């Protein structure tokens, strides 16, 4: 790997990993906002209005950073990966352009109304704007995941030209959009986003409950987010399984790396946790013998092609990394199911908000979906190496010819500096908004102040 390739890969991985913190949060938060504002319109309860306004401010902060870091991604395809851009422009470019025109425009235009339109438009129009922003971010993810999925499982194309002039041409647009992994990967990513957003709401609300602040707001928000989280985490089990089936069928090398399976053709184990020694071609750990074979073929003895059945130059090199990323994602997925179901159980028992330790767990739970989303992405992207377009274009040939290593290094340092600063400021401002809490607009209603003893409030039932 020469320096330009290494540096460009680091830069791309770094900028996308950083970007990928924010859009999932805004998608998940957007859905929670629609629920909060919808409940406000339905019940005219001030608590929901104040809650909506509070979370809109946090949404704005997250959305802003998401947009700013997203534009970087769009340009990097051209700046660092010019050969790739030419190769896939017909396909990837169309999906990206469709994202801009059908999704990004929608969310950005109505974001202005969402943030500043409170006194300019009627509550119904404002609610519509909230829905449109949420929908925009959901569509946006759709097109981006479609574009990425085409790289994982290309279809609806043919190759025109040879050597460096080769490029993929769309032959059937809808086959390209609904390529074999689009739907499965999209639902998996979308639900990951719902988990990211709902666990942020859970975490912040749990913190208020622990501090006995804004109890009415925090408990209302907690209930909404807990339902979103419970439904999503269960659904994630299903979409995760579907995504794994697609990988099994179309990306055998990635599947083999995910489970650290080397043998050419033998039954494969499923690891709960473990360690891969890629040099010795040995995987050790806690496993269900033949588990992967069973999951794929419903037969513990069914052979699964291992990494050795794949040409050495076509194998992913960072096998242990893919293995660990994948297993961490699955483990966290299980933890999220357990946590949200237990939360619902405690809500049913009317003990949820009094269980201090559980609230403490929920405060920290915000990190789990974030980590799972990140490592899930690593599994998908590192697992498909050395291909940038699976089976068609290698990452090493996708580079820009005109770019020098020192220029990439300079830009990488610049981005690292800006992003570290940005992340620090983001945490600082997020914390500040949380410390500040929702603004209580109406002070002489039935609930004089949300900071008061919760037993005075008719809103608190648990």
């Amino acid at each position: 790997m020469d320096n330009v390739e290494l540096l460009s890969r680091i830069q791309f991985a770094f900028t996308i990993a950083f970007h990928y913190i924010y859009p999932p949060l805004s998608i998940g938060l957007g859905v929670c906002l629609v629920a909060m504002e919808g409940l406000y319109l339905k019940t005219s309860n001030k608590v929901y209005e104040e809650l909506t306004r509070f979370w809109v401010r946090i949404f704005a902060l997250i959305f802003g950073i998401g947009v700013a870091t997203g534009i970087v991604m769009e340009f990097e395809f051209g700046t660092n990966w010019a050969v790739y851009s030419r190769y896939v422009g017909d396909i990837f470019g169309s999906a990206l352009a469709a994202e801009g025109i059908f999704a990004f425009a929608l969310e950005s235009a109505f974001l202005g109304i969402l943030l500043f339109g409170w006194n300019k438009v009627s509550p119904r129009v404002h609610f519509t704007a909230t829905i449109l922003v949420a929908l925009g971010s959901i569509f946006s993810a759709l097109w981006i995941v479609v574009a990425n999925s085409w790289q994982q499982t290309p279809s609806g194309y043919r190759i025109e030209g040879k050597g460096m002039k080769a490029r993929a041409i769309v032959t059937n647009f809808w086959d390209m959009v609904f390529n074999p992994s689009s739907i499965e990967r999209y639902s998996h990513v979308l639900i990951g986003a719902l988990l990211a957003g709902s666990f942020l709401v859970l975490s912040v609300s749990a913190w208020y409950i622990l501090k006995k602040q804004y109890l009415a707001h925090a408990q209302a928000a907690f209930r909404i987010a807990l339902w979103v989280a419970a439904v999503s985490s269960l659904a994630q089990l299903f979409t995760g399984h579907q995504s794994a089936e697609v990988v099994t069928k179309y990306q055998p090398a990635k599947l083999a790396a995910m489970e650290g399976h080397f043998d050419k053709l033998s039954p494969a184990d499923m690891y709960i946790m473990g360690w891969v020694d890629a040099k010795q071609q040995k995987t050790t750990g806690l496993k269900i013998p033949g588990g992967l074979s069973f999951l794929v073929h419903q037969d513990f003895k069914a052979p699964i092609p291992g990494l050795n059945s794949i040409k050495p130059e076509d194998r992913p090199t960072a096998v242990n990394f893919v293995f660990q990323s994948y297993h961490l994602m699955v483990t966290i997925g299980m933890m999220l199911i357990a946590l949200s179901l237990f939360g619902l159980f405690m809500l049913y028992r009317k003990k949820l908000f009094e269980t201090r330790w559980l609230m403490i767990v929920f405060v920290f739970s915000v990190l789990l979906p974030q980590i799972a989303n990140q490592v899930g992405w690593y599994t998908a992207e590192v697992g498909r190496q050395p291909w940038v377009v699976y089976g068609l274009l290698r990452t090493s040939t996708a580079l820009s010819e005109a770019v020098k290593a020192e220029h990439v290094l300079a830009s990488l340092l610049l981005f690292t500096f800006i992003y570290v600063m940005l992340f620090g400021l983001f945490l600082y401002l997020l914390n500040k908004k949380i410390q500040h809490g929702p603004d209580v607009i109406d002070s002489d209603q039935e609930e004089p102040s949300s900071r008061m003893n919760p037993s005075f409030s008719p809103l608190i039932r648990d």
Partner: protein
Amino acid sequence: MDTVLGIDLPTWWFLLIGALISGYGILDGFDLGAGALHLFFRKEESRRIALNAIGPVWDGNEVWLVIGAGSLFAAFPLVYGTLLSVFYLPFMLFLVAIILRAISIEFRSKETMKWWRQLWDVSFCVSSILISLLLGLILGNLIQGIPLDANHRFVGRLRDFFNPYALLVSVTVLSLFMMHGAMYLIMKTEDRIFARLTIIANNSSKFFILCFMATSMATLIYIPHMIAIFKNYPELFVLPIAAVLIVLNIRRSIEKRQYRRGFVSSSITTALLLILFAMGLYPNLVLSNVDPKGHISIYEAASSDASLRTMLLFAFIGMPLVATYTVFVFWTFRGKVKLEENSY
């Protein structure tokens, strides 16, 4: 070749991307200009008003850049890869400035400390200026052509981009945006900041006209290929004449205090200048200044007809939608800016 309404598909996309870039120049142009003028406003309240004048719309304005770049990627991938990689460092600086600008707007109001606001004010202003200058620098080099060999390989050096003509275009773009931004802010403000802006609009329009004349002269003298089209189609000469008249109309509007008309005129100026540039290029997208074989034409760079046709359908559906949202948002926030609880 596949045509729609008698125009071939690559030409359609040449026109559409031209329209998107013009839309970007007009829309983000005024908020970049407002940013470039930001430090001219001294009072905290004036700065807040100026910021809130663009607050609800700047993000929507930037969408035109995203769609424009996405369309270039989709319709002319060869040009997208070549241009962005050739101008690697300018684009990287551009991206960093875009990030800094976005977070300056977002972060400024979050603390009340004087140093905090001063910091983000400077960052907002400097990044707005930097973005305008970099756009101008890239445009200036594209007008002259860039060193590409017959295989479209870049054979130049980074420092060649900083030539006098490109720097002149760069300053001209900044002056255009500043004038355009001043005209927009005037429409959105009253009292003290309004009074200050009338002076700024007056000065920035003079500054722009000076730059405009210098760039026009330099182009006539040094860049013959940009005016070659008028030898073949003399009737097109009406466009540069229109540009001059519109520019004069900006001055007239300012003197008669008809700022709305002035804003429309500076919008048209932005579009006309880009149209003149596009006419000089067509049917090429990138010109090589070392080997005519290095020119990248729309036909060579275009994606497949099937892809261009599908996307054209998307554009016919999507562009009216985008235009509708844009109009709706501007209409919602019409009138003079009033500071309130949700303001920056």
